[in-house]
């Protein structure tokens, strides 16, 4: 059924898929049993698996090229929303499948289809009929959009050029450059994805909807459990509710709890990408979430940030071998010599504007940090940040740079 939506240029097929998946939701609401749920979820997940994992399926069994199949933009988030809807119907969290218009808006709303946040069907459909203009929400939304533009156009895009340069020359650059590259990638991915989430949530507020918060100062986290309560909150709560808890969660033996954590984070890793580097990233996070509950040392915010930063390396690398090379170069021969420091600074632009570029980038990072710090301390000063962010976008916004990182998942 859902294979329709994979056909190249399939606008019509996409709408047909929404209709068919809604019919399945209706049928499931009338026959709430495990077999029906399994069939519905399998049909929902199949296109994602076939397009994302096609290289790992023997060509004798499945050849996507011969069927002219391509991954639909936003398929990962679209699939998670459909599965969430089916699981909530089965669990009785909603009485019946929503009407077709509400369902179609829920699974494919233009502000959320590419990179989330992944709202729950009940939270979304409960607002569809009541959403209206509210000046307080609108100004809050406008501020979020501005904040998202600063994060993306100033911080993420400026950090991206440095990170790309580092990853293109891992074996020749001094270790200090690799450390700076790792730090700036941690900044880039946060600024990029939380920037998108801010824009998406800002538009939702302008429309009169309250969306799901996706980030809550994640780099201030105390331990990995806390980190995942603050980073990509809508995905981590989705994984908790639809993978971790059905597996048994923490209400089982110690070994089983550990296995459940690893399995949940393995799913998270494989959802992000098919390479071994993504699986490694997911499993390491699972292990560290478990260790965080045992070792107080990891619950220190600085240690947590350092480990999170190091684990972004396989996430950014083209494969596991590149990630291992990066680690090896990072830890071997780390030097704070003048030449290493000069190389680290020159890498920003490669010419005599490098110091200015670095100053602007770090001013952007500082502004983002101060904004997060204010939010972390529960202080709200939108006027000051509105002025600051407006000036930053106008003066330093970098146009013509890369797309949102999470749009490719």
């Amino acid at each position, binding site marked *: 059924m859902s294979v329709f939506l994979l056909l190249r240029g399939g606008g019509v097929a996409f709408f047909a898929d929404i209709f068919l998946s809604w019919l399945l939701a209706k049928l499931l609401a009338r026959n709430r049993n495990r077999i029906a749920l399994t069939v519905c979820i399998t049909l929902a997940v199949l296109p994602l698996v076939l397009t994302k994992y096609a290289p790992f399926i023997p060509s004798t069994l499945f050849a996507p090229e011969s069927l002219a199949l391509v991954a*639909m*933009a936003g398929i990962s988030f679209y699939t998670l929303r459909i599965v969430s809807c089916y699981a909530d119907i089965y669990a009785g969290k909603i009485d019946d499948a929503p009407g077709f218009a509400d369902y179609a808006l829920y699974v494919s709303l233009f502000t959320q289809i*590419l990179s989330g946040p992944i709202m729950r069907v009940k939270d979304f459909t409960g607002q569809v009929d009541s*959403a209206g203009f509210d000046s307080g929400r609108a100004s809050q939304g406008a501020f979020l*959009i501005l904040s998202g533009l600063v994060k993306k156009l100033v911080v993420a895009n400026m950090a991206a050029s440095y990170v790309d340069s580092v990853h293109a020359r891992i074996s020749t650059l001094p270790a200090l450059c690799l450390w700076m590259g790792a730090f700036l990638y941690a900044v880039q991915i946060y600024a990029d994805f939380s920037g998108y989430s801010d824009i998406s949530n800002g538009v939702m507020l302008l429309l009169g909807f309250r969306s799901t918060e996706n980030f809550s100062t994640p780099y201030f986290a105390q331990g990995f459990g806390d980190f995942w309560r603050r980073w990509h909150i809508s995905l981590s709560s989705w994984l908790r509710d639809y993978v971790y808890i059905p597996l048994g969660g923490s209400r089982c033996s110690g070994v089983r709890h550990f296995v459940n954590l690893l399995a949940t984070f393995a799913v998270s890793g494989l959802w992000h990408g098919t390479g071994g580097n993504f699986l490694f990233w997911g499993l390491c996070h699972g292990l560290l979430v478990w260790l965080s509950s045992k070792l107080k040392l990891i619950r220190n915010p600085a240690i947590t940030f350092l480990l999170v930063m190091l684990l972004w390396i396989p996430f950014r690398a083209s494969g596991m071998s590149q990630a291992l090379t990066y680690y090896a170069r990072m830890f071997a021969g780390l030097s704070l010599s003048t030449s290493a420091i000069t190389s680290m600074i020159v890498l920003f632009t490669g010419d005599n504007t490098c110091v200015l570029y670095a100053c602007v980038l770090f001013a952007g990072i500082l502004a983002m940090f101060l904004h997060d710090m204010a939010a972390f301390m529960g202080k709200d000063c939108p006027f000051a940040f509105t002025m600051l962010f407006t000036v930053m976008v106008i003066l330093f916004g970098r*146009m*013509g740079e*890369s797309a949102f990182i999470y749009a490719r998942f």
Partner: protein
Amino acid sequence: MAENILKFVAFSLIIAAVYHVVPRSLRKCVLLVANAVFYVSISTLAGGGGSVFC
């Protein structure tokens, strides 16, 4: 592309304005049409799987 991020924001602002101007009974239609326009533009115009907006 960053220009496309600005296009996405501009598109969203136009939809938000239209959404609040039309009668309440037509609001869902506005969002459904916006979804269709957005999806077709990111999939078909860019040649399937590509993206015009982001």
